């Protein structure tokens, strides 16, 4: 199963691009406070979507509503033929297996080795017993080694996660997500704690993974310029609502100012010479 995904990297830009995720009128309220309101959009296979917006705009809530780490109040989500909001416990596990997630603080188990952290991504496929005992098949271990090598971590395979740099930790996080064989990767500010050089490495990996392995991405970022550089499409959220959904090149400086409102003063936006592909 893994082998097939590996041997046949998808061809982006081929004639028909399928719809993978569809979000319809999604709303999440915490009591009186509305975190996200009436959000609708679709994501296609292999598409690299970047989510921007000021902090507290609802980016995290939106990402977590897609794999139901947060239960939305109303609205619908369809993913790869499943109606997410109607899934039972078993269906939910199946859904989460197909969606990888990476985090700002990496969320690794510090004391465990790189390879053990990577293999954690397979726990969604395990029964209570095999999962609790951490019994992995030879094939899974090989796949873990492949991913570790692919992300340039082979010499750190048996190092403890807390001995790695931030950028290396995030690569472990990516490997853990990829070993799930996901169709979609959610990233919650994955480069917010990294220095610019490590951030660029991570973004380059994500971009090439999206295009080579045909995995869609929804990545939230607070650096607008990075967003404009890497995104196939930009989604901007403000006060829980989508205020822009389109190509990065159509996103003007004024629109960005508008999105960030009073926070715009802090942004350094370079709009010239941006899209690398």
């Amino acid at each position, binding site marked *: 199963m893994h*082998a097939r995904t*590996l*041997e046949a*990297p998808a061809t982006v830009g081929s004639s028909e691009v399928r719809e993978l995720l569809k979000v319809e009128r999604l709303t999440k309220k915490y009591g009186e406070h509305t975190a996200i309101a009436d959000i609708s959009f679709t994501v296609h296979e292999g598409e690299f979507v970047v989510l921007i917006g000021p902090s507290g705009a609802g980016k995290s809530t939106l990402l977590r509503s897609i794999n139901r780490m947060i239960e939305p109040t109303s609205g619908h989500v369809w993913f790869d033929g499943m109606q997410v909001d109607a899934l039972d416990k078993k269906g939910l596990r199946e859904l989460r297996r197909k969606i990888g997630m990476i985090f700002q603080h990496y969320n690794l188990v510090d004391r465990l*080795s790189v*390879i*053990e952290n990577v*293999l954690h991504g397979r726990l969604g496929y395990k029964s209570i017993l095999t999962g609790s005992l*951490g019994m*992995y098949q*030879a*094939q899974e*271990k*090989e796949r*873990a*080694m*492949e991913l570790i*090598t*692919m992300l340039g971590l082979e010499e750190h395979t*048996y190092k403890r996660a807390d001995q790695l740099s931030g950028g290396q930790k995030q690569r472990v996080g990516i490997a853990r997500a990829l070993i799930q064989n996901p169709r979609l990767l959610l990233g919650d500010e994955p480069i917010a704690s990294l220095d610019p050089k490590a951030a*660029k490495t991570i973004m*380059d*990996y994500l*971009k*090439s*993974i999206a*295009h*080579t*392995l045909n995995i869609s991405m929804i990545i939230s970022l607070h650096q607008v310029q990075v967003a404009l550089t890497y995104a196939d499409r930009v989604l901007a959220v403000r006060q829980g609502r989508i205020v822009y959904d389109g190509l990065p090149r159509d996103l003007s400086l004024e629109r960005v100012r508008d999105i960030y409102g009073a926070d715009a003063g802090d942004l350094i936006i370079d709009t010239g010479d941006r899209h*690398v*592909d």
Partner: protein
Amino acid sequence: MSLDKSESIQNIVTQSGRLAASGRSIKVKPLSKSRLTMRITMIALAALTIYGFFVFDYKNISPWQGTIDMLTNFKTMFLSPHLAHLTFWEGAYAIVVTLAMAVLTTLISAFLAFFLALFAAQNLSNHTVARSIQAVAAFIRSIPTVLWVLIFAISAGLGSVAAIVGMSFHSISYLTKAYAESFEEMDQGLIEALRATGAHWWHIVFQAVLPMSLTYLISWTFMRFEINFGVSVAMGAAAGAGGIGFDMFMASAFYHDLREVGAITYYILVVAFLLEMLSLRMKSAVRGKMI
């Protein structure tokens, strides 16, 4: 750039095909020193526990019957407590006596430990002096409090004097270690700066060291007060020092009055809960100050 990356990923994709074909087994949980030590420790503890259960002196008491008795006794104690050999106010007074012993012990130890800690902190004191004080403190801590109290009871007689002095011995060595660690965590730069101005050592202590570490000192002291309350109860019972512990000992060992033991337990619980709440409040207040 990203083009290079995708190429490298493609390369690895093909490489990995070969890797998979080779089918060598991959180790997931390498046995590190840390893991090995943990495993040995856990196995040793489990083995000693099981061995212990075989050799304990049960004195013909069946563990199962005893456990059933215990549960019935708990029911009687906690559901129908009453006081027979002392009035409600006598009980309250006994609690005050126990608290007073804890207060005196804590204050005496805090005062002495502060000065000892100044000499025991590596950054404020001479290395040899610091080492020797730490060693003496470790030795004192290695003798359980009840033994200190009984040692002092030989010269001072059983009672509050022996209890408070004995408890203070242990308490002082505990606080000395805690205070010294608080001093050592301080910003070294500030002490150096003051030293450079030619300030006297005592000036540094009272102008910099004390204000900077005060919140830590208070929180450690209060924590020790909580411990000392429990110790006071115990010393009342074991060393005839009076207070609620002594009443409990009488109710249990002399009158065999289960329901009175229950009532006295409630006294202790109420005070212990109050102290814990107070301590949590103080900790959050102290933490707030530090931020």
